């Protein structure tokens, strides 16, 4: 099937093939459909009171439990009735559901997870899965993909139907109907923000599980696989390694193509999926924050983000390890009035787009392995969906560490998040470090683990002024520097080693020769904590009594502390004195 230029411009793909069956026609007019209720011309959720509550951050909170998603916190704008908080069954079109329903041998828990996700997403509330583990990634992505496809199909079907109505009226010589308002400013309505090309490949295959051949044709498929996979002939040492050589989560994150600069538009029609479509003619934009930011800065506008109705951010934990600034930049440019017209038919633009209210209806879906202050801030302040928002709440057990190691949690007082970095630095340099330096045992074979690079620079500079031997490892270290530093530390030539969390995230080196551990702050990744605590035992003849561990923390480290010490213990640790 070839698109004529006219078709691309009109954005209605293959109108000739669009034969809307009688049944589908019925549910087009169905105003009780959750899609219509939320994204229709007269959205039931969008009221001035609701917008006001959202702007003033006046939310009614309630706790509930949602099957496989576990316990959840739900926020509904004050004084609004967003309808049932869970749908009886999902609102997915049968045609789209068929392929995944037909699949055999899906484990029951995955099947349940899919259903719980779909019924939750069908309420059009925002969803923040704050502890989605890599084991569930595939079924989660597939369920969300189905929801996205459903959204796009319903939207496009309405547009195509109206195109027909208008052209029929003009052909018959009548005035075309005037009251049709069925679209946004620009065509793309789904944005998926991802950290790596490999994640884009995974999402693409999740999307295409619902669009099997021969009903659908996937165009440019080989090109997509080659650009988003590894080049042919390259050996992926992570994917091919013996299981257990590398930590599981590391393999899952870094196998495949880990380029973090990409963007691609995907166009959907009734019969085809077409990646590499120009942005203004596509339905889904898949991009890394960096790739998208560069495009926005090049074009000097983000008009293709003006009509995003679904935002998916996957692997937020990896995104926070990349540059969070880019993420904020993208969010700043979402759902704004466009700067140029881009062939928008303004008479068909939905009224809430014209009023600049589209951000109050956008559904955002956030997926992360764990909570961070950044993502929580995003959830609290940037998600304005008037239908409400749901976040999952996991209670963490204490992380497993080698038996017998004495973990010493040191709390410093701090009353204001702004002073936190200064207070931490002061405590470290005036109280913690002097005691370490006084002890002969503790002032050698000591690793100082610093989560943030900014703190790392500060600590590094402080060590330069001291007369102790030390070396550093950060995400900017070259391979040569890394091997030299590891060697020097292992041989005892250097007594101190300062490492950053990102260094460990990207490289995952096992460090030998550790006896003393100082965590300048608890790491974001709980598994890093247990990994570091196990490293001393790589060397022969190390007893657990030889190992010391200190963790510096304040009450603002709650999220990280919770994952290491466990929820219960963390409550004790942060209780005010």
């Amino acid at each position: 099937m070839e698109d004529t230029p006219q078709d691309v411009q009109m954005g209605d793909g293959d109108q000739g093939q669009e034969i809307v069956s009688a049944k589908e026609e019925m549910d087009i007019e169905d105003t009780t459909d959750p899609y219509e209720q939320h994204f229709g011309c007269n959205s039931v959720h969008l009221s001035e009171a609701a917008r006001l509550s959202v702007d003033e951050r006046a939310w009614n909170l309630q706790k509930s439990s949602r099957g496989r998603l576990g316990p959840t916190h739900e926020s509904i704008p004050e004084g609004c009735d967003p309808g049932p908080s869970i749908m009886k069954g999902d609102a997915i079109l049968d045609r789209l559901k068929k392929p995944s329903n037909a699949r055999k041998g899906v484990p029951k828990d995955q099947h349940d997870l899919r259903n719980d996700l779909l019924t939750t997403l069908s309420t059009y509330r925002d969803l923040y899965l704050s502890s989605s583990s890599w084991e569930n990634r595939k079924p989660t992505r597939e369920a969300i993909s189905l929801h996205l496809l459903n959204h796009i199909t319903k939207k496009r079907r309405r547009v195509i139907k109206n195109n027909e109505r208008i052209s029929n009226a003009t052909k018959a010589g009548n005035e075309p109907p005037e009251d049709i308002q069925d679209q946004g400013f620009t065509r793309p309505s789904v944005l998926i923000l991802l950290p790596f090309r490999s994640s884009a490949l995974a999402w693409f295959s999740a999307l295409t599980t619902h669009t099997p051949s021969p009903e659908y044709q996937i165009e440019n498929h080989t090109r997509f696989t080659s650009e988003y996979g590894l080049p042919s002939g390259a050996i992926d040492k992570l994917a091919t390694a013996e299981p257990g050589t590398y930590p599981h989560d590391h393999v899952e994150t870094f196998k495949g193509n880990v380029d973090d600069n990409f963007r691609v538009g995907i166009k959907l029609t009734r019969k085809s999926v077409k990646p590499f479509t120009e942005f203004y003619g596509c339905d889904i934009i898949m991009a890394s924050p960096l790739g998208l930011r560069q495009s926005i800065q090049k074009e000097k506008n983000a008009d293709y983000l003006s009509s995003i109705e679904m935002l998916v951010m996957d692997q937020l934990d990896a995104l926070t390890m990349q540059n969070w600034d880019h993420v904020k930049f993208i969010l700043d440019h979402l759902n704004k009035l466009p700067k140029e017209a881009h062939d928008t038919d303004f008479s068909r633009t939905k009224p809430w787009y014209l009023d600049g209210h589209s951000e109050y209806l956008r559904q955002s879906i956030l997926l992360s392995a764990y909570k961070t202050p950044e993502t929580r801030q995003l959830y609290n302040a940037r998600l304005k969906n008037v239908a409400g928002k749901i976040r999952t709440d996991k209670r963490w057990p204490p992380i497993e560490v080698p038996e017998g190691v004495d973990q010493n949690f040191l709390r410093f007082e701090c009353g204001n998040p702004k002073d936190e970095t200064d207070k931490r630095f002061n405590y470290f340099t005036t109280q913690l470090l002097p005691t370490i330096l006084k002890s002969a045992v503790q002032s050698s074979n000591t690793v100082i683990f610093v989560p943030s690079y900014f703190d790392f620079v500060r600590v590094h500079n402080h060590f330069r002024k001291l007369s102790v031997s030390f070396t550093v490892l950060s995400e900017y270290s070259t391979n040569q520097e890394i091997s030299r530093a590891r060697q020097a530390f292992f041989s005892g030539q250097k007594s101190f080693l300062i490492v950053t969390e990102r260094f460990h995230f990207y490289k995952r080196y096992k460090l030998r020769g550790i006896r003393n551990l100082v965590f300048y702050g608890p790491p974001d990744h709980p598994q890093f904590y247990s990994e570091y605590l196990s490293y001393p035992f790589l060397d022969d003849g190390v007893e657990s009594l030889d190992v010391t561990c200190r963790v510096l923390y304040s009450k603002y480290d709650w999220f990280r502390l919770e994952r290491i010490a466990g929820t219960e213990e963390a409550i004790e640790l942060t209780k005010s004195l």
Partner: protein
Amino acid sequence: MPSPEEASTSTDPVSFSSLGLIKPLLEALEQLKFIEPTEIQEQSIPYALEGRDIIGVASTGSGKTAAFALPILQKLWDEPKGIFACVLAPTRELAYQISQQFEALGSAMGVRCAVIVGGMEITAQAVALAKKPHIIVATPGRLNDHLENTKGFSLRNLKYLVLDEADRLLDMDFGPVIDKILKVIPKERSTYLFSATMTTKVAKLQRASLSNPVRVEVSSKYQTVSTLLQYYCLMPQKEKDTYLIYLANTLAQNSIIIFTRTVHDAARLSIILRTLGFPAIPLHGQLSQSQRLGSLNKFKSGGQRVLVATDVASRGLDIPSVDIVINFDIPTHSKDYIHRVGRTARAGRAGKSITLVTQYDVELIQRIEKIIGKKMELWETDKEEIALLRERANEACRVAANELKEQQNSGKKRKRGGEGGRRDDRDRDDDVVEAGMPTRKRASRGGRR
């Protein structure tokens, strides 16, 4: 075209309610302290309510805007729908002012207006139009731009078309654009033409394609109001700046508009006056649209007492408290003179105009006197005081010349493209050629596409 029939003048006292206006409008009028209709309102509203096309001619400041706004709002009340009426005005400032008046008069009925003028962002306007405002107030160039380029926008259900300052809109500069706009507006509509000076050329009026219009004229044409005292002030050409400063000095307590022929003079004089401590502010076509609105607002609010303007500000603007209009240059068209001095002595208030006349301008001034049918009086000057001012005036002129040169140097880069033939165009402000920076911005955007 049938010749317009003349309206007769009645002498009975009338009120707005006896004109047949509906309650929401009467309430709004009361709130705005409009107690009784002006002559033009009294005479045109009944015809308008009958549904006739109108050519309205009334002197400056006599309430023409309300004369067409009221009947349109009344019809809108009967048949509320989007894109009901379109008002065209020659300048952006006037467009804003008309829309404010519509909003004030229609506040009780919740009327929605959109102002569509050059220099503002196109997409934001496209969005505003898509919301189907009841009233569109526009300058012709930008409106036509939207008609040609904004998908989904049309005027095919328009009921009312108003040309304010109609003679200006129907003349050479705007004519072609107006023709284009009229082509896409339905023939079954009411059309109102309003101005203080109206052309009698049938060819021009035909442009507006009126049907059976009634001509409502409350003053013989080209008249200035009787509350306006008009003076001239004779001086040698090279002493013009000094005399102006002398005038500004002796009239310092008043709010003054000084009209110049060129943008350069307007910029230069405002610098001179500011250097000497007068609160002067420029208004001309080389400023950006936001600067222009800012200048006007500062002057309206009384923060700055002296406005130095080109003819951008000569038509239609209603600034209640202008005491004195000074013509630094004699306008080339005597019509412009009437519009300029019409900025003062509005709505029955008193006002003065002073025209600076040099040895070269005697003929021009006589022509104007002939047209307005009045002799101007001589404005007495004090030779000694002027002599005292001369030194400081020359000093200020030097400062201004330097400052302008600097501005030009710093702005050289961005001005380069616009040098040459377009320099004169900038002041036209007729949206055929847009003034100031926005044009270039748009041009470059277009180039990139």
